[in-house]
């Protein structure tokens, strides 16, 4: 089992083996969450800090619940833009938090790379809860878990990710996580919503959702943000919905056993029709539910060593083996 210090990118888990480890741990934490007393002392005495520069009640509560179920203590430094001076050194903020005796900092920031910088400056573990357009590793892990839960091993499954890939940290983490687990990924978006270069991305691309939907096991919808309208990326939300939205008509194109996923929050009527979100094939609420157990697994992996003591039993010193036959002397 590899030791982990940070979870900044999906790549930090070291490929399929690492993600599998998280999946198995999550099974255990799902069981813990279903107990009469859903709590284990695994992180007793550890303190976690939430450093959320971007508002996110949902993700923060998910981490908070995970921490509490592991018996950890928490401190909240979530900052709305008014309480943090613009331009206050990220380093100073991180160091101040660490000085209070923190074992891990969970960071969400509008700037890609902010958790990576913090990880350079502190001894604590750093968990990336979303950095700009870059990655959102715990989201991808709960997505993997949800797919595995409903459809088994991801290897060989075909997953379409639809929407604003360019600006999506969820999409990036999902691409790396799904492909590491052996799934085939198709990105479906207009060219303006794709990253400038897909060199080295192990994905296929399509601009035609109707051709892709009948061929996939999972369709993963990304939020289409209204803010994007000012950037001339798509002519209008209506046009986006007509060409890429999972409408009531389009959902009929999916195979009977295909699943619909969304990281939330949904723009009902834009990327997903209101009724589609509530179909049995939409596992969006399962994603949220699994989020707590997945985050417990991540926090346990990063912080769950008892202490840094060497175990009590000293290294075994092997007794000399039974005497071998002596060779006759000449």
């Amino acid at each position: 089992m590899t030791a982990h210090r940070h979870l900044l990118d999906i790549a930090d888990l070291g490929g399929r083996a690492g993600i599998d480890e998280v999946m198995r741990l999550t099974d255990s934490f799902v069981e813990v969450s279903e107990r009469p007393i859903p709590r284990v002392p695994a992180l007793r005495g550890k303190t976690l800090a939430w450093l959320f520069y971007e508002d996110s009640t949902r993700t923060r509560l998910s981490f908070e619940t995970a921490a509490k179920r592991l018996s950890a203590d928490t401190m909240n430094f979530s900052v709305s833009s008014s309480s943090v001076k613009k331009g206050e050194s990220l380093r100073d903020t991180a160091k101040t938090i660490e000085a209070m005796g923190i074992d891990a900092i969970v960071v969400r920031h509008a700037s890609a790379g902010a958790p990576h910088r913090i990880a350079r400056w502190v001894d604590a573990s750093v968990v990336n809860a979303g950095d700009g357009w870059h990655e959102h590793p715990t989201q991808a892990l709960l997505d993997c878990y949800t797919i595995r839960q409903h459809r088994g091993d991801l290897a060989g499954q075909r997953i379409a990710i639809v929407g604003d890939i360019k600006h999506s940290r969820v999409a990036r983490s999902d691409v790396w996580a799904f492909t590491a687990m052996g799934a085939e990924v198709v990105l479906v978006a207009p060219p303006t919503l794709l990253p400038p270069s897909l060199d080295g991305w192990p994905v296929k691309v399509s601009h035609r959702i109707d051709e892709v939907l009948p061929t996939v096991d999972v369709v993963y919808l990304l939020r289409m943000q209204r803010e994007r309208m000012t950037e001339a990326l798509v002519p209008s939300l209506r046009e986006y919905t007509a060409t890429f939205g999972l409408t009531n008509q389009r959902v009929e194109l999916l195979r009977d056993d295909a699943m619909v996923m969304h990281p939330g929050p949904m723009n009902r009527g834009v990327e997903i029709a209101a009724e589609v979100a509530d179909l049995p094939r939409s596992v969006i609420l399962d994603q949220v539910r699994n989020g707590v157990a997945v985050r417990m697994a991540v926090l346990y992996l990063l912080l769950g060593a008892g202490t840094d003591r060497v175990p009590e039993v000293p290294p075994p010193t092997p007794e000399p083996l039974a005497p071998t036959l002596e060779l006759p002397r000449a």
Partner: protein
Amino acid sequence: MPESSSLVLKGGRIIDAAGERTGDVVVVDGRVTAVGADLTADRVLDATGCIVAPGLVDVHSHLREPGMEEAETVETGARGAALGGYTAILAMPNTTPAIDSAAVVRQVLDLGRTAPCDVFTSGAITVGRAGEQLAPMAEMAALGVTLFTDDGAGVQDNGLMRRAMEYAQGLGVSLAQHCEDDALCGGGHMHEGEWSARLGLPGQPAEAEELMVMRDIALARLTGCRIHFQHMSTARSVAMIRDAIAAGLPVTAEATPHHFTLTHAACATYDPVFKVNPPLRTAEDVVAVKAGLADGTIAIIATDHAPHTAETKELPFDQAPPGMLGLETALALALTELDLPVQQVLAALSWNPAAAIGIAKTHGRPVAEGEPANLCVIDPEVTWTVDGATMASRSTNTPFQGRELRGRVRHTLLFGEPVVIAGEPQR
């Protein structure tokens, strides 16, 4: 007034525009008085194993004064320059206020008078560098400014740039351009390509630079005005300049050491020390820049020395300001990274830039009797490790932190005065 005393640079080999030869160099009263074997003087500066060359000239330094003195001052910038072998530097006008009037020009020149390097300044092309109205170039030219640029930004308006070029030509001054089309840049913080896609950072495409290079070449053709392209970074920019020069157009170009050494892969750690405008580009672009330096398309190496305080560089990548230190590492990088004869490297660092800004009468001179003694003594073999904390700059933002380089300045003479002796600044 100190008594005239003589100084000899002993045991080195001289490389200048005239060629390469061994010889001691005697300096009296600010001038070279003798060059030859076994010379003596009151004071000896050891140059054994070293190259004696005309002092380097940087046509692109941000000295941050007035307005941003926490990052650098004219004095600290000049000290770093002297340590890097520079005897002349040209300040860029993106200060606060901008250097867009005689008053600010005068202020910068005054600050430079006591500096350990000959400090010149450029002037802005437009008032406040806002790109709307021409700045009073004539009044600045009257104070000796020979080069005008809005550096930090490019002049966006095509019509305005044309007028600026025509006007400049009338005055006999040069214009230089920081080529960056704002609309195409779209708020990009690094090169738009496979790294920006993977890192999730908005990027600016190579075309944001190339579009303005293309435009200014066309305007140079239209107006006949000289245009100097600053910090060229892309393969196609270099190619267009090559063609323009071949077509006889009055076009020159410079490149920075970071653009012939580093690529956009360096940004993978999200360390804003690697954030710069124009951004670090692809490996192919680096190859093309080196080729441009090799075949003379790019005749000048300039540092674009851009100090920033630690606090500003400790912000997330997209919030941090772009820019890197350069004065103390340029020579070593040029000697280490470019596979070129030393004389050609020195041409790009010394006499070519001197000519570009009209100071060729005092800087970049041949090492010969009667010439002003603006010289540097370079040990080409010594290895040293770059450490931003020990540099003369007020700031420490060097992307080469911890890197081992070969080649370092031992002594620097400014009009005969040793401002650097054995790697130590004298003032």
